[in-house]
């Protein structure tokens, strides 16, 4: 049960039940982009309200479910747009309620006007994810699917979208389901020996049990490994730009953003506050934190700035430690950084290589924030720091949700315990304790919690019964 509450809290549920009478509206496609925008309306009044502003061949109020109607949206006697209206009646809609999808030509202004016309008719703006919550609560999707949709809503970049959609399509669900199936098969073999000892059956030798457990653990490990990637895809990467004053941190920020966002000057100590900007690269969202150069200073404001730089370092996934090729490697600062954060998160970078060619300092990458030289290698290095060297395809099953990650880890622990029991020569009923726990951990991911699967499997596969 906790699992439900981890995505939909008790409070939200209560609110939902109180609010489920409401009809809600929101833009269903990303704002501002694309040739067509879709506005979604859901709730008991949705059909009635759309009917009141729609002018077409027939009336929406008489329309059957899953029908599409062409016509005009009129508001205050003004034609706002030509639209397509799709009608879905409960329970056969995305949310399980009566709902309508309006496809318009997509200008921001038009969308704005249509939504406003709804708001005047006792329809309220949907909360983020509210359609999905309704869908889930009305039994229209399983847990993993619902979570994936929530991820889509929260996701910022393309890869994240693709990842989340994959999950929605059930790639992770299917994978976990197949692991669970494997587990149920092994459990059945053990149970067979316990409940049908009298029967003339061949029982699974213990080495085979271990083999099967190992197979499943390997698969779980593969899934666990994708989490770093999945998390990056979901949450993005925090990159702190740090270094001594004047090494070119702000220049690098500007270069990456392709705009002159931060003030750059030859005066050391130019940047005082932390500047936060985002840019996306190969579908990964990087959050850049340009910081004040770190040095001992009496200036009160700069002091505070340095203090904040250290904070940014602590919260970073990657620390881009910038050095000036002229001044050389800032060893003292490096030592300090290592105390704040794990060494493997630090990317040692040397800047201004346009000034001193063929000079080599030991580091991960060399760049020039002025000419752009080496930026490609910097990109590569940043990506690798964030997600490791494995090459994941977003088409495979990816774990991007902490709850799923933890459930998989728990499943693995149980399997390891089960294996130990086998190795210690324990009989089947002891091994079964952990196999069952593992099965239920996997079941938590996909919201499956049946207890009869093992017996059903036995009855189907084995000739038993005296």
């Amino acid at each position, binding site marked *: 049960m906790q699992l439900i509450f981890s995505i939909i809290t008790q409070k939200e549920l209560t609110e939902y*039940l109180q609010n489920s009478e409401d009809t809600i509206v929101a833009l269903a496609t990303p704002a501002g982009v694309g040739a067509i925008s879709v506005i979604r309306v859901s709730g008991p009044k949705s059909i009635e309200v759309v009917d009141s502003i729609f002018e077409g061949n027939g009336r929406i109020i008489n329309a059957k479910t899953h029908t599409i109607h062409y016509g005009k949206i009129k508001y205050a006697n003004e034609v706002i747009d030509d639209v397509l209206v799709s009608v879905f009646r409960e*329970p056969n809609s995305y949310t399980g309620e009566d709902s309508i999808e309006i496809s318009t030509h997509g200008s921001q202004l038009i969308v704005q006007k249509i939504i406003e016309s709804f708001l005047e008719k006792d329809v309220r703006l949907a909360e983020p994810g509210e359609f999905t919550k309704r869908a889930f609560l009305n039994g229209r999707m399983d847990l993993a699917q619902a979570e994936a949709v929530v991820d889509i809503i929260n996701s910022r970049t393309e890869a994240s979208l693709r990842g989340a959609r994959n999950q929605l399509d059930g790639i992770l669900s299917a994978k976990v389901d197949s692991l669970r199936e494997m587990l149920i098969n092994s459990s059945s073999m053990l149970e067979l020996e*316990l*409940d049908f000892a*009298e029967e*003339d059956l061949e029982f699974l030798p213990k080495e085979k049990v271990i083999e099967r457990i190992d197979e499943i653990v390997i698969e779980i490990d593969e899934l666990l490994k994708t989490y770093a990637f999945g998390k990056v895809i979901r949450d993005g990467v925090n990159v702190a730009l740090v270094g001594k004053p004047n090494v070119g941190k702000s220049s690098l920020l500007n270069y990456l953003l392709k705009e002159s966002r931060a003030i750059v000057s030859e005066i050391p100590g130019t940047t005082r506050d932390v500047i936060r900007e985002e840019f996306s690269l190969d579908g990964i969202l990087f959050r850049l934190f340009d910081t004040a150069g770190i040095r001992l200073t009496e200036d009160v404001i700069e002091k505070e700035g340095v203090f904040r730089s250290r904070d940014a370092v602590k919260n970073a996934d990657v620390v881009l430690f910038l050095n000036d090729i002229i001044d050389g490697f800032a060893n003292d600062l490096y030592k300090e950084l290592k105390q704040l954060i794990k060494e493997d998160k630090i990317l040692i970078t040397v800047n201004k290589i346009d000034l001193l060619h063929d000079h080599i300092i030991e580091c991960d990458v060399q760049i020039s924030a002025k000419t752009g030289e080496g930026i490609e290698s910097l990109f590569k290095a940043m990506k690798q720091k964030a997600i490791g060297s494995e090459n994941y395809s977003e088409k495979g099953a990816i774990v991007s949700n902490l709850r799923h990650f933890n459930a998989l880890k728990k499943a693995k622990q149980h399997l390891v315990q089960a294996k130990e029991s086998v190795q210690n020569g324990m009989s089947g*009923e002891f091994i079964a304790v952990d196999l069952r726990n593992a099965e239920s951990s996997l079941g938590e991911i996909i919201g499956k919690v049946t207890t009869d699967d093992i017996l059903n499997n036995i009855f189907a596969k084995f000739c038993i*019964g005296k």
Partner: protein
Amino acid sequence: MYFDLIVVGGGHAGIEAAHAAAKMGVSVGVVTMDKSAFGRMSCNPAIGGSAKGHLVHEIDALGGIMGQIADRSGIQFRILNRSKGPAVWAGRCQSDRKLYSVEASKIISSTENITIVEDSVIEAIEEDRKIVGVRTLKGNEISCKALIVCSGTFLNGLMHTGLNATKGGRFGEQPAIGLTESLIKMGFEAGRLKTGTPPRLKLESINYEILEEQPGDENPQPFSRRTDRSKFPFLPQVSCWLTKTDSSVHQILEKGFDRSPMFRGLINGVGPRYCPSIEDKIVRFADKPNHQIFLEPEGLDSDLIYVNGFSTSLPEEIQREAIAKIPGLENAEMVRPGYAVEYDYLPPYQIDLTLETKLIKGLYFAGQINGTSGYEEAAGQGLIAGINAALKILGRKDEFVLKRSDAYIGVLIDDLVGKSTDEPYRMFTSRAEHRLLLRQDNADRRLYEFGHRFGLISDNELKEMKEREVLITKSKDLFDEIKFKPDEINNLLESKATNLIDNAEPVSKLTKRPELNLRDLLQELDLEKYPLVNSLLANEKALEQVEIELKYEGYIQRQQDLIKKMEKLEEVKIPESFDFLKLKTISNESKEKLHKVRPRSIGQASRISGVSPSDISILLVYLKN
């Protein structure tokens, strides 16, 4: 005529129900069609087996009679799964079919407050949705405050052998007519199930020379804690015999498939997948060349052999011809053919965890009528129904419901009510999520207190158990403290071929080693120093418990953690008056399921098949409001 309680049927469910209620002080009338058929074994002359043995121990620990009857009529006793851990050890016995019934009759006729009425109940009578009495075939009307129906396979029973169908609940016995219809009139739903039994052979006509013998245990163990061990076993012990079918047998059976009532669709009832007929086995597992057959004697002075594994409803001549092809049975004389029986059951979502029906107050169902199969399953339900009916008649406010973590009986009833089986339900150890805790050996520790509360377990029995409990706890504590130094114990360790120790280790830790047993370890202590250890060594039962709890501590702990987690959901009660249909946001299917089953706790609701976790969260929210 009036009785506080009427029990319909003197089968395994009926006798437990009648006995428990009578002992609790209510007047009981047992109406049964044949008074010489108390506790008659319709099928296999055996009690116990995996999970079923557990049920017998639990019935015994609650003050039921099945264990004692089985002990007195048993002609072969075995503990199954001896090579595995104690949680799956299961007692099983072959019974003398006739003596089993005789012993059951003895107990029933000697129990105060029980009156036996030989008749058939054809109608149950209600007033204002409360049961008030029954009408019988002989034209009597008997009134009562409560009624327990334990009709077994008799409600509109129909027996099939080949294309011949005969009305009856059991070979040579009439079916029960009318009762189902009167229940349907009250608003109940009825369904149809099927089960089968193998042919019987003449004892002397079998060639035992070439068969594998299966003797009982050398040191037979009784089921009942009340059985006098000095006299046990009461009867001479016999062996069973093993043989198997082969392709020549299968070929003959196949010849009869065109006259199989099963394959011809003449049987509407659903049969159990775990107990298929031989024709089912051949069809479903076509690649299996042989099927094992157990030849089981039906009794000491019976000349019948029960052909376990060969349940069938094929035509009689096909049965006869096929049997002659089985090794050892070449000259076997078939005394009676196997048959399938179809009967009415009442899908058990209609009962509560007390086995009282939701529709009619004072009406209880127990045994095969609830869709179970097996003597032990029936007896367990009979006991619970009897106790609850008596509590109600006596005006006591408490009810008797066992949790899944208390007993297999709890698992059984919870499954029945929540999953409302559509095939005959049999108990398996894998149905119990707390299997390691629900052992035969601790049935008294789990259940004596309940039995005592209802006057079915004596003060002395409870006292003995409680003293033992203290001894167990103290010993476990002590064994964490007492440590063996290497030089005190390494000799023993060496002789048991297990690793020697370098540093002192507590007794509790050493006990965990599979190679060591607690008694051997304790013998190495200076016993004069530890009077407690002396008492423990003198108390075999307590010693066994301490050893099990120490040896499997980690596993037991994990199951207990699980119980705690589940208990939280069990503790959230749903009021009886709760209207599940008003749950707006739940799918219609789960709404209907919930409405049908009317779960009494969130835990119970969460186990109903088809009710999803999100339904449960919504239910929770409604309950909070």
